């Protein structure tokens, strides 16, 4: 797994699309790793600078819907507005709700090499849950 500390993400094989497995010491850290995984699928390891910020609030009826909506917001920011995230400040607002400040910049075709055309987040074999020690582990597949 790549990433800092105990968490990180890894790319998963799939017959026609692609997924990531990710983890973090807490729910916000796990969501951050999921977001980093999505960013890496979009622009690989192209350097992303912190030039502007965006605030999003996301919730779900369970942890899976939270993950679905969280990654959906990030994909929307990228596909509609060309925004790529470099850093995340995520705080939980209650069960299955988070508020996040996203720091990043606009997609620049010269500096950012596109990798995958991620169309959507799917519920296919999606997982997100804490283990006995309180660390969070998740998995999600994307339609590309």
């Amino acid at each position: 797994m790549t990433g800092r500390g105990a968490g990180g993400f890894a790319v998963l094989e799939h017959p026609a699309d692609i997924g990531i497995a990710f983890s973090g010491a807490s729910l916000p850290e796990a969501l951050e790793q999921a977001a980093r995984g999505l960013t890496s699928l979009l622009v690989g390891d192209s350097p992303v600078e912190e030039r502007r910020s965006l605030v999003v609030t996301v919730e779900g009826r369970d942890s899976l819907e939270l993950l679905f909506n969280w990654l959906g917001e990030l994909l929307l920011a990228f596909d509609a507005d060309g925004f790529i995230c470099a850093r995340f400040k995520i705080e939980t607002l209650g069960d299955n709700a988070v508020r996040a400040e996203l720091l990043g910049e606009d997609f620049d075709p010269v500096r950012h090499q596109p990798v995958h055309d991620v169309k959507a987040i799917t519920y296919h074999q999606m997982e997100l849950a804490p283990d006995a020690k309180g660390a969070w582990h998740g998995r999600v597949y994307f339609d590309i």
Partner: protein
Amino acid sequence: MAGSTSTSKAASRLTRSEPFVWRLPLDPSRGMRVEGRVFLSEALLPGALKDLSLDQVANVAMLPGILEASIAMPDIHQGYGFPIGGVAAMDPDTGVVSPGGVGFDINCGVRLLSTPLGATEVRRFLTELVGVLAADVPAGTGSKGPLTLSDTALDEVLRQGLEWAASEGYATREDLACCEEGGRMAGALPEKVSLAAKRRGQRQLGTLGAGNHFLEVQAVDEIFEPALAKAFGLRLGGVVVMIHTGSRGLGHQVATDYIRLMDSAMARANISLPDRQLACAPVRSPEGRDYLAAMACACNFAWCNRQLIAFRTREAFRKIFGPTNLPLVYDVAHNIAKFERHLVGGQEKLVLVHRKGATRAFPPHHRDLPESYRETGQPIFIPGDMGRYSFVLAGAPGAMERSFGSVCHGAGRVLSRTAARRRQNFYEIEADLKRQGIVARAASRSGITEEAPDAYKDVAEVVNVVEGAGLARRVARLRPLGVIKG
């Protein structure tokens, strides 16, 4: 953590019932309401057993209101909820509609333009032509289209489809006649499309996208049915252009929004399904009606998208070859849900047909075909993988009898994308294509490596099955000369 390559449980229950048809027997104890019917051959069978696609065929058979069979085409592979290559016809009064049965790329489809030019004369200017097309047709992740639509204009695109394109001068009346639904699906309500979807689509009209989407300059390489080929405007050695793309971010967001909506509605009603991606709602419910109205908008967007790319293609040919007529042969959708009339239990009735990675295939004399194709049956385009053949087919009566008027959509992937990228590098594939005389331009490296020919099932075998099963007839084979990809 395990990946998604679990073993199929349904595989052991699959039995061959006749040439080209395998069955998953109806098993009410597993919740199936109808049998599974999979069009295959011995050669394609191992591929169908390797992933979870047969389990998905069995899951679809559980949906309320499904009629006759949960059907799958020979290019079947694992999708989300529905298998890709899946066809399911539902009773509109008792049945459900499922966004997973349409796909994220609503109205992903293919159109073919014919030209009066021959391969020899086009080859002389092939590099320049591909260069102009690559410059004029935006492709790849993050690319913006030639238009940024105002909110009002976008709503007109969603509501009117190709009627909008015609009023703006991007489409001729002949283009509309040669498109499924005339390029405008009725019942489109832009207010049922979310702001998020509109934000994604606003700057993407006229873009190719990435993944397996492409624009190909091709030559007619072989003709199987001379009379049909002539009626389609195809001649041996003639150059044609194939455009494969869909509704871009707008459609993807509509699918996402309604999967989420229906998933929540089902949770509230305490309905559970074996797969969350099968989220559905009764056709006649508010959620079902809203999805169909939004889906129609996304379909209209996709037809306008392919039309704008065709417009740019016509301009590119004019720049290189002078004034040249590039008529539209036809435009087919392969991710869609349609209200159609079919025979069910000997009676003709209205049904809702889901086609996910499956193409409509209406036979000769079908009332919905344009006059020019009443005698021939509907043209169908089956794109092969990059560097290999594509096929033109014509709908046959067997499709109406056995698959609710449907055939395959293209070769299914055998290698996962990550495996494909490891297997052949960009330079090897580029060299391979060059050796075959194919000029390829991709906006990204993965556009070439992930779409490497090895990554796909052989489309010829898939076409062989649909012809053998009587669903369609082969008309011509097309060979790529130039490729634009995202």
